[in-house]
């Protein structure tokens, strides 16, 4: 069979390459109205009055609603799904996040009113007629300013704009280790704010059916069940079974479509009010202002080394900018998805991390491709490289000497870190060795030395990043203990049809990852059917069992395992049926290549025949129910821990400050690989996004809280001609605790690449005296750094 491990061409591509994909905005319901939102142009202002008279009277307008209307109707605020309490034990401050602001706006883009009209054009025209009387207040924008004395306060009941603070690790041991270290490398920097920019803007359609008293919400989301749960139970107070959430084809998410947004509530609620469908599609300008942003940490890090270069202690202090409200998973990103990864691949015996989450008058910040792990990896890998440069050590050697020795998680136990996690399996040296060989490290260093000696103005740099990340989120009991308000299992229903064809209902939801192919491969391998005999259904709460959706590179490790568990049950039942039909003992049967065979004989029965018998049970084991369909919920035993070694080679044009990425080698270990083509694509995309952070992307706010990089005219997305071709390879260290042995491949590139690029540029410019650079490494910044150094 060998379906697993094959680069099977994607099943879903047929519709995408012919323009037949069905994204939310492609859905046109009869009798639909169109929504336009009135949004705050101010970062911080009190609302004195909202006058909707002119808008309501405008051509084609069906209704206008304000925050006051929603309040009067008892619509709740948007909930937060994770609680991180203060170090002191005090409960997290969780101020209300109104669906429409009624009394105060807290960031540019905060919605104030919604206008429904017969056409998009009329809605847009009428929205301009809503007059909002604002009293503008001073705004706070930078994380480091939020807790300053006299800083503007966003919420009356959140002193110092601080909803939580948090720590992990042994502070005393870490301080002591650093005090006695032979060398301490210290860096202080911003991990800049990014804007997710899925190319499909968010879209939501609410459709209330009065005859059935039933709601349907179509939304561009990564997790329709989670949206339904949050919206029904916490915001609208609707009976969950009367609400269907459909998330059809999703045009990219990168985290930004995990969260429950105001517009989803609004179209659903408004549809009920007017008895007609309501459609809202974000413009890109709105997306810039309202899709939850990512990163935005201010961090100081100290890494201590002994005289031999062994890491003795790591201290990290971070202020995380959460924006104006707590988005759905905001508290967990700079804490449990960040602090717990600060052990990295290293045996550092003492690690301490201290995080303060702060509110500012900016767009809320939440998980973005990598979510916490890129920030953690940047802390470690930038600092380790800096330590190598400062102490004159080879950065590859410095890393390897501090690596945790190889362990497979079976013969050798998992590795217990100083920061709560237990790694599943790892062979970190192997990945680095493979990357060094692939890039031709010695030759590159020789070329670099030659260029430096020649003084020909070619500034070549080689940069490393050896990262680890946590995927397969997550064991429910563990995350529950850490503040998650949801379980993080995954579901899969596997329905064998009478003819032996298979329909899978998965709680995971693809937004580009290729589930319809990868999952079909898993099923084809497990049941011995053809890929074309498997259909994957996702994204609809009415057909799929309650599932948690797709994020944190969890789909295959958790969702795929749920499918395997259902298939195990199918095979178990199938064996009973087969044994009956073959008149053999169940234990004498083996299942292979789609048939049950009596061991040592040529007596066998095909999977399809067994399926048919299950539905036409004329001749059937006594007491066995007909049918061949099982649903499983899989709660993982642990996270999975992909890792890898990335090496970037850059050339810096010192005259203009332009950085050209000449080569990029990524050796990732994502455990077993089901579809190498898809994994490679995921890695490519992640690296590109990470290079985007290193060199190009940056949400820029002015002091008054205006987003001045609010369009593609200013916000730089990497384009085809900004990048080299990537060289990717793998090592394979299977995950010991899931049956597929897979770890997750969706975010490795984004996590691994930023420090590799920045380190390479620092390596290139170190001889010129450049000692630090802040992301993104724009030409001006690089040029200025060179000027100041020389």
């Amino acid at each position, binding site marked *: 069979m060998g379906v697993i491990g094959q*680069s099977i*061409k*994607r099943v*879903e*591509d*047929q*519709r*995408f*390459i*012919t*323009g*037949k*994909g*069905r*994204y939310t*905005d*492609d859905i*046109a319901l009869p009798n639909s109205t169109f929504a336009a939102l009135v949004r705050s142009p101010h970062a911080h202002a009190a609302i004195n009055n909202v006058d909707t008279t002119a808008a309501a009277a405008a051509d084609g307008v069906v209704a206008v609603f304000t925050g006051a209307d929603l309040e009067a109707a008892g619509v709740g605020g948007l909930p937060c799904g994770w609680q991180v309490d203060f170090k002191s034990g005090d409960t997290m401050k969780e101020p209300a996040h109104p669906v429409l602001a009624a009394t105060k706006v807290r960031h540019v883009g905060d919605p104030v009113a919604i206008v429904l009209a017969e056409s*998009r*054009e009329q809605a847009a025209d009428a929205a301009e007629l809503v007059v909002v009387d604002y009293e503008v207040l001073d705004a706070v924008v930078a994380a480091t300013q939020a807790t300053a004395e006299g800083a503007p306060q966003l919420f009356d009941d959140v002193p110092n704009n601080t909803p939580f603070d948090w720590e992990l690790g042994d502070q005393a041991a870490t301080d002591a280790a650093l005090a006695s270290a032979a060398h301490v490398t210290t860096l202080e920097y911003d991990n800049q704010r990014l804007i997710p*920019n*899925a*190319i*499909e*803007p968010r879209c939501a359609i609410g459709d209330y059916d009065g005859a059935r008293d039933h709601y349907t919400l179509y939304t561009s989301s990564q997790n329709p069940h989670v949206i339904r749960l949050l919206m029904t139970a916490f915001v609208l107070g609707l009976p969950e079974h009367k609400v269907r959430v459909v998330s059809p*084809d*999703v*045009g*990219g998410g*990168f985290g930004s479509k995990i969260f429950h947004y105001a517009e989803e509530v609004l179209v659903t609620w408004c549809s009920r009010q007017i008895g007609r469908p309501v459609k809202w*599609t974000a*413009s*890109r*300008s709105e997306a810039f202002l309202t899709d939850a942003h990512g990163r935005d940490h201010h961090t100081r890090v100290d890494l201590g080394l002994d005289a031999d270069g062994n890491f003795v202690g790591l201290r990290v202090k971070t202020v995380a900018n959460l924006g104006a409200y707590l988005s759905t998973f905001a508290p967990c990103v700079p804490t449990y998805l960040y602090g717990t990864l600060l052990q990295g691949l290293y045996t550092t015996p003492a690690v301490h991390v201290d995080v303060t989450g702060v509110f500012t008058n900016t767009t809320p910040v939440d998980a973005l491709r990598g979510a916490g792990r890129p920030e953690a990896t940047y802390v470690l890998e930038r600092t380790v490289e800096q330590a190598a440069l400062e102490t004159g050590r080879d950065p590859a050697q410095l890393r390897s000497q501090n690596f945790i020795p190889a362990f497979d998680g079976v013969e050798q136990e998992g590795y217990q870190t100083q920061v709560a996690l237990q790694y599943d399996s790892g062979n970190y040296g192997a990945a680095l060795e493979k990357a060094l060989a692939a890039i031709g490290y010695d030759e590159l260093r020789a070329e670099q030395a030659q260029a430096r000696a020649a003084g020909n103005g070619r500034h070549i740099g080689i940069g490393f990043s050896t990262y680890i990340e946590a995927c397969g989120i997550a064991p429910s009991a563990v995350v529950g203990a850490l503040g998650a308000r949801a379980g993080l299992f995954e579901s899969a229903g596997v329905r064998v049809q009478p003819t032996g064809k298979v329909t899978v209902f998965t709680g995971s939801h693809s*937004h*580009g*990852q*290729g589930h319809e192919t990868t999952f079909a491969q898993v099923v084809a391998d497990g049941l011995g059917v053809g890929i074309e005999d498997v259909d994957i259904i996702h994204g609809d709460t009415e057909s799929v069992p309650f599932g948690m959706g797709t994020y944190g590179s969890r789909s295959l490790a958790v969702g795929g395992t749920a499918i395997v568990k259902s298939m195990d049950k199918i095979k178990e039942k199938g064996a009973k049926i087969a044994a009956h039909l073959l008149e053999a003992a169940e234990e004498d049967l083996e299942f292979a290549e789609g048939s049950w065979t009596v061991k040592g004989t040529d007596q066998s029965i095909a999977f399809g025949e067994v399926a048919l018998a299950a539905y036409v049970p004329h001749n059937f084991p006594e007491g066995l129910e007909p049918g061949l369909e099982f649903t499983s919920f899989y709660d993982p035993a642990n996270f999975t821990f992909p890792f890898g070694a990335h090496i970037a080679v850059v050339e810096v044009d010192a005259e203009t400050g332009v950085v050209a990425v000449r080569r990029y080698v990524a050796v990732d270990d994502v455990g077993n690989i089901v579809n190498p*083509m*898809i994994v*490679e*694509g*995921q890695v*490519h*995309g*992640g*690296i*590109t*996004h990470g290079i985007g952070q290193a060199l190009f992307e940056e949400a820029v706010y002015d002091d008054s809280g205006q987003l001045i990089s609010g*369009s*593609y*005219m200013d916000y730089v*997305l990497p*384009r*085809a*001609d900004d*990048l080299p*071709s*990537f060289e990717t390879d793998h090592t394979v260290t299977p995950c010991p605790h899931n049956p597929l042995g897979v770890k997750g491949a969706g975010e490795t*590139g984004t996590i691994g690449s930023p420090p590799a690029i920045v380190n390479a540029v620092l390596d290139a410019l170190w001889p010129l005296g450049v000692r630090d650079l802040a992301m993104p490494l724009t030409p001006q910044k690089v040029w200025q750094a060179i000027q100041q150094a020389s």
Partner: protein
Amino acid sequence: MSVAIKVTVNGQTHEHEVEPRQMLVSYLREELGLTGTHVGCDTSNCGACTAIVDGQAVKVCTMLAAQADGAEITTIEGLAANGTLHPLQEAFRETHGLQCGFCTPGMIMAAWQLLERNATPSDAEVRHALEGNFCRCTGYDNIIKAVQHAAESA
């Protein structure tokens, strides 16, 4: 006011009265139901809306439907001839040149224009020709491969 237009889209002629402010992309998507052409931005940068208008790849989010009066338009839905996929469509699948698929129609149309003007582009030329199209998923490598693959198979 409204403007009478007559356009040929994927070989079919349509006549409509349109509002002057209606963009060609919204005409294609909303009036003709051809939703394969996507809208990804409002500043003519992302390229998701690229279609072929009178032989030229155009960002149809930045063109009025009224301007298209008399034009021959090909959208992604019309690229396959008589049920046979265009070599570019085949190539995007073959080399995994797409993930979420949202940028794909525009990407294919931009690539179509390149190959029409340069049948044997270098990798650098392909990258340059796609500078008006964003992909956030794949990182472009496989898209470049797709275009080269199509160039070879054409």
